[in-house]
C-alpha cells in the first residue's frame, strides 16, 4: 500500500516536471540555430500571460463551486423531504442538471441569459465570465444535491429514531444530528466534484471567455510556430495537473481514513 503510494507520488512529480524537461531538451536542440529564439525562452515569455488566464479558471471554479454548493444543499435536502411534491420536483431538477452535458448547459446560459439587465431604470452589464460561472454552477448544483442526499441517507435510521425519541424536531434532527455526521462522508465526493469542476473550466474558452486556454491559443497565433504547440499546451496541462493532483491525493487520503473506521 505504502509502496504504491510512493510510486504514485514519484510518477506524479515526474509528470509535472515532464513538460519543463521536454521544453528544456527542445530548447537545447534549438541552440544549433541561434537565429530562432529558443523554445524554452518563448515558453518563459508567455508563462505569465498563461498563468494569469489560468487564475481566471481558478476564480471561475471557486465561484461556481460556491454558488453550486449554496444552491445544491437545500436541493439535496428537498430530495429527502417528506412532502411528496417537493421531493419529486427536487429529484427531477437534480436528475436534469446532473445528466445534461456541462458544455450544453454552458451554451444554454451563454445564449439565453441577457448580456445586461435593467434594474430600477439602470442597465447593469452582465459580463460573459459571470454567465459562465452560472453555467458551470448549474451542473455543480445537481451533483452537490446528489452528494447531500447520499450522505444523509448513509446515516443509519436509528440516528433519526433516537433523535425523535429525545424530542428533537425534524429540523433540529437534520441540522444538529444528521448533517454533522453526514458532512464527514460528503467531504470526499465534494472535493472530487471540485477537482472535476476545475478541470471543466477550460470549457468557458469555447463559449468565448478569455481564460488560460484562450491565452495559449493567442500565444500560438502570435508566435506562429508549429514547434511551440506541444510545449505550450503541455505547460497548461501541467498547471492543471499541479493544481488538481494534490486535491485528488487529499480526497483519497480522507476516503482511506473513513474506510478504516467502519
Amino acid at each position, binding site marked *: 500500500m505504502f509502496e504504491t503510494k510512493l510510486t504514485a507520488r514519484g510518477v506524479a512529480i515526474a509528470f509535472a516536471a515532464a513538460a519543463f524537461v521536454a521544453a528544456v531538451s527542445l530548447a537545447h536542440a534549438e541552440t544549433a540555430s541561434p537565429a530562432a529564439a529558443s523554445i524554452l525562452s518563448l515558453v518563459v515569455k508567455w508563462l505569465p500571460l498563461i498563468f494569469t488566464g489560468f487564475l481566471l479558471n481558478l476564480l471561475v471554479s471557486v465561484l461556481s463551486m460556491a454558488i453550486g454548493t449554496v444552491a445544491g444543499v437545500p436541493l439535496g435536502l428537498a430530495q429527502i423531504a417528506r412532502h411528496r411534491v417537493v421531493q419529486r420536483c427536487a429529484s427531477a431538477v437534480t436528475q*436534469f442538471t446532473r445528466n445534461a452535458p456541462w458544455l450544453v448547459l454552458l451554451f444554454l446560459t451563454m445564449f439565453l441569459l441577457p448580456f445586461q439587465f435593467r434594474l430600477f431604470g439602470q442597465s447593469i452589464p452582465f459580463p460573459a465570465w459571470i454567465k459562465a460561472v452560472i453555467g458551470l454552477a448549474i451542473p455543480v448544483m445537481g451533483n452537490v444535491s446528489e452528494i447531500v442526499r447520499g450522505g444523509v441517507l448513509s446515516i443509519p435510521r436509528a440516528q433519526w429514531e433516537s433523535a425523535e425519541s429525545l424530542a428533537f424536531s425534524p429540523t433540529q434532527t437534520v441540522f444538529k444530528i444528521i448533517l454533522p455526521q453526514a458532512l464527514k462522508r460528503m467531504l470526499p465526493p465534494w472535493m472530487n466534484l471540485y477537482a472535476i469542476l476545475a478541470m471543466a473550466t477550460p470549457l468557458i474558452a469555447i463559449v468565448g471567455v478569455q481564460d488560460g486556454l484562450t491565452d495559449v491559443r493567442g500565444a500560438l497565433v502570435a508566435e506562429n510556430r508549429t514547434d511551440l*504547440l506541444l510545449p505550450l499546451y503541455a505547460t497548461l496541462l501541467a498547471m492543471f495537473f499541479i493544481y488538481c493532483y494534490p486535491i485528488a491525493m487529499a480526497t483519497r487520503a480522507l476516503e482511506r481514513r473513513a474506510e478504516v473506521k467502519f
Partner: protein
Amino acid sequence: MTIVEAFKHLNDAYGINLSIVYDPFDRERFVHGFLMTLLLSIVSMALSIVIGLVGAWLLGGRSRLLKGATTGFVEAFRNTPPLIQLLFFFFAVSPFLPGAVNSAGQVTPLIGGVGWAIISLSLYAGALNVEIFRSGLEAVPSATREAAESLGYTRLQAFRHVVFPLAFRISLSALNNNMVNLIKTTTLAYAIGVPELLYASAAIWSESLNVREMMLVMLATYLLLIAGYTGIMNRVERALRMPGTDV
C-alpha cells in the same frame, strides 16, 4: 395538413421555429449529428473498457515498471482537463505523425478529428476505468480466489471463471456512471470541429436563427440518449444479477 405543413404553420403563426422537422437540410444535419454522437460514444466506450481492463491487469502484475507506468497514465489523464487533452492531441501531437496521401495527391493527416476525438475520449474514460476495475478486483475476497484454486483451477481459470465475473459485477455501477460521463464528454469534440450533435445544433441555430428551440431540442436529445443508456444498463444489471449474492 401534413406534419411538415403543421410545423411550418407553427413557425409562421407562433414563431416556434423547429426547422429540423420541416427543413430537409436541417433535419439531415441533425440526424447525422446524432449518429456521430452515437458513434463517438459507442466506439469510445468499447475502447475505454479495453484500456481499463488492460490497465487493471497491469496494476495486478509483478512488473514494477509497468505498474508505475500505468499509475502515471491514470494520474496524468485523471488530473488534467479532458478538453485540453483533446486539443493537445489534435493540434500538438497530430503534426508529428506521418501524413497519408489521398486520391488527389494531397497530404492529409493520418488521423482526422473523429479519430482524435475517439482516441482522446477513450484514454480519458479508460484512465478512470482502470481505477474502477482495480477497486472491483480488490473487492473480491481472497478467500474466494483461494477456494477456486483449491478446487484445482489454475490462476488464469480462477480469474476467468470466478474472480473476473464477480469483479465485473461489483464494478458495474461505477462503470455505468463513468460511461454516462463519457456520453456527456463527447460534446467536447465540438471544439475540434467534429460534426456531432452539439456542433450540428449550433450550425442549425446560427443559420435558421432558432437558438431557443434548437437548444431545447438538443438538451432533450442528450437527456433521452442518457436515459436510453441507463435504461439498457439497468436491464443488463438485472440480467447479470447472481441469485444469492450481493452482486
